[in-house]
């Protein structure tokens, strides 16, 4: 089968500190800004390093006014602003101007947004598409022997997509845990550093015309979130993640398996009608979002071989799309 031809990745953005207390990305981007390594192999991608939420980073908090990583819907990016507009919404527009505009030809080719989680998730890619061959190939290329890796798909339309990585033509979050917020653990940092390095290596090889063979990739598609049992009046949580579920992200959860343990020691079980894969189990930042854990279905995705378009092929492709735009 012929490979799928895709435009080169001329501009790649690596973002850290989108949540100011997720420190692996903060320290990694700071280090990369200091050393400013240039890619030498093949056709260089220009790499932009961005510290997304400097004010939250300074205070070592997730956000100052509102979660920056929910501010990138088209509506929020283009809506009205005033003096009272929250800091993160103003910042999302700055980032959109720098890396976007989202949805336009000027947007960067690839955004990799660095995150940490308190959940025991290893290294995860989080993306809005299960057919973005660039992201899936990078994931496949990245396989690191000591770090469990999964690809998580949030089935959200481009119109509704809200995360920073949705600005780029391609984008994903690199989420690594477990790490407490406000802390950097050396093994987590090292995994992230290697992940970013391999990703940039891949982009270099891709741009220089390498053919990447297709294959199979397991993809976890988010199905639903489960909240903690809460007190009707105070909304305080009334149970913890059950000890037999704690830290067992991506271990299949069957109907009847323990889910929560109340403060009086009672076990509450999962009562869904199909076995699903839990993740983001006991993520600190999700208490306020009403999420104790998320549940996903696993499927096997066939990805095609891909290769970067040559300059000629890129010209032809753009002439064709210009012509079809004219017809419209």
């Amino acid at each position, binding site marked *: 089968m012929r490979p799928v031809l895709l435009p080169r990745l001329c501009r790649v953005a690596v973002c850290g500190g989108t949540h100011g207390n997720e420190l692996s990305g903060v320290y990694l981007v700071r280090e990369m800004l200091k*050393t400013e390594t240039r890619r030498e192999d093949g056709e260089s991608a220009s790499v932009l390093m961005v510290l997304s939420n400097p004010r939250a980073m300074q205070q070592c908090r997730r956000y100052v006014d509102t979660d920056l990583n929910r501010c990138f819907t088209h509506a929020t990016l283009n809506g009205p602003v005033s003096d009272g507009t929250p800091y993160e919404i103003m910042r999302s527009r700055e980032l959109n101007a720098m890396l976007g505009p989202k949805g336009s030809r000027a947007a960067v080719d690839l955004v990799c947004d660095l995150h940490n989680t308190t959940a025991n998730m290893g290294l995860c890619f989080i993306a809005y598409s299960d057919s973005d061959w660039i992201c899936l190939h990078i994931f496949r290329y990245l396989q690191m022997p000591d770090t469990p890796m999964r690809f998580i798909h949030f089935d959200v339309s481009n119109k509704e997509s809200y995360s920073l990585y949705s600005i780029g033509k391609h984008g994903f979050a690199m989420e690594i845990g477990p790490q407490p*917020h406000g802390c950097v653990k050396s093994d987590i940092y090292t995994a992230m550093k290697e992940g970013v390095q391999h990703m940039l290596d891949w982009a270099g090889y891709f741009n220089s015309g390498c053919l990447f063979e297709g294959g199979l990739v397991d993809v976890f598609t988010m199905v639903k979130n489960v909240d903690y049992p809460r007190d009707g009046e105070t909304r305080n949580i009334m149970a913890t993640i059950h*000890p037999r579920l704690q830290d067992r992200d991506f271990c299949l959860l069957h109907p009847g398996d323990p889910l929560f343990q109340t403060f009086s020691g009672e076990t509450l079980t999962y009562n869904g009608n199909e076995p699903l894969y839990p993740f983001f189990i006991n993520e600190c930042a999700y208490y306020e979002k009403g999420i104790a854990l998320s549940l996903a279905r696993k499927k096997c995705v066939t990805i095609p071989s891909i290769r970067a378009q040559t300059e000629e092929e890129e010209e032809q492709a753009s002439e064709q799309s210009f012509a079809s735009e004219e017809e419209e």
Partner: protein
Amino acid sequence: MSSGGNNNTKAAARVDAARRVAIFGGTHGNEMSGVTLVNLWVQNGAEIQRKGVEIKPFIANPKAVEKCVRYVDTDLNRAFTQENLSATGDDELPYEVQRAQEINRMFGPKGSAGAYDVIFDLHNTTSNMGCTLILESSKDAFNLQMMNYIKKAFAPASCLVLLNEHPLLKYSTSRSVAKHPVGLEVGPQPQGVLRSNIFEAMRVILKHALDFIELFNEGMEFPACTVEVFWVLERMDYPRDANGNIIAMVHPNLQDCDWEPLNPGDPMFQTFDGKSIHYQGSSTVYPTFINEAAYYEKQQAFVTTRRETLVASAVRKA
């Protein structure tokens, strides 16, 4: 336990019965085990009732708890200095200084005969410290006997004792308002997260502590005993550059190795480009509070301790 064992040649030290006890949760608003336990007990205190003693569960820093942050203006658990407690200025004072004065009125005054007998202060840490009791004085026989009791009751599970009596590093804790301050520190748990195993461990330790108080108040004599403690030596900061930015992380060989020996020459930090920095001290130490998130701003990567065995005299209710 009978009074006067074979090697107990001295009469037991007489200590006043503990009639007023408080349990503080949320001294740091994002340390969830204590917040959750105290909220539970405020609603229904049956579990913490004991004969002959009034036990008050109390949220120390409600504003921080509401926002799920460590503190609002300043660290409450450093705020109980004499200077702060006697400061004037009311509303202009930082929130936690006002709160410290209020707590001092309710449970103190610190250093006076009218102060609460015991305050248990519930904390969590991101460090892999397991269950730790924090002692502020090596001469508090009542506390030492309590900790000995707790350790034995909790065994075979481990509950260690950290003694912070260092003249410079000792700090003015919320519990220091009481005659017998007891810190409970359980980890590892991320800030803002509630883990069931950590929650249950803290609950069990407190149960043993309250059992001790009840037995003591009933007149039981606790014979002289020894208690192994980890005595705080020094605070080790992260390596920093000229601008004060951290340039290295806790080394993977040290991460999560609280209470294990750190020998001269052992790896201690790892720079962001992978180089090891080694411990340069002259003797083996026992590090703890390794990689506590809240201590980055306090210039502390970990503290070193030395192991020591303290002798606690026999105690009995006065």
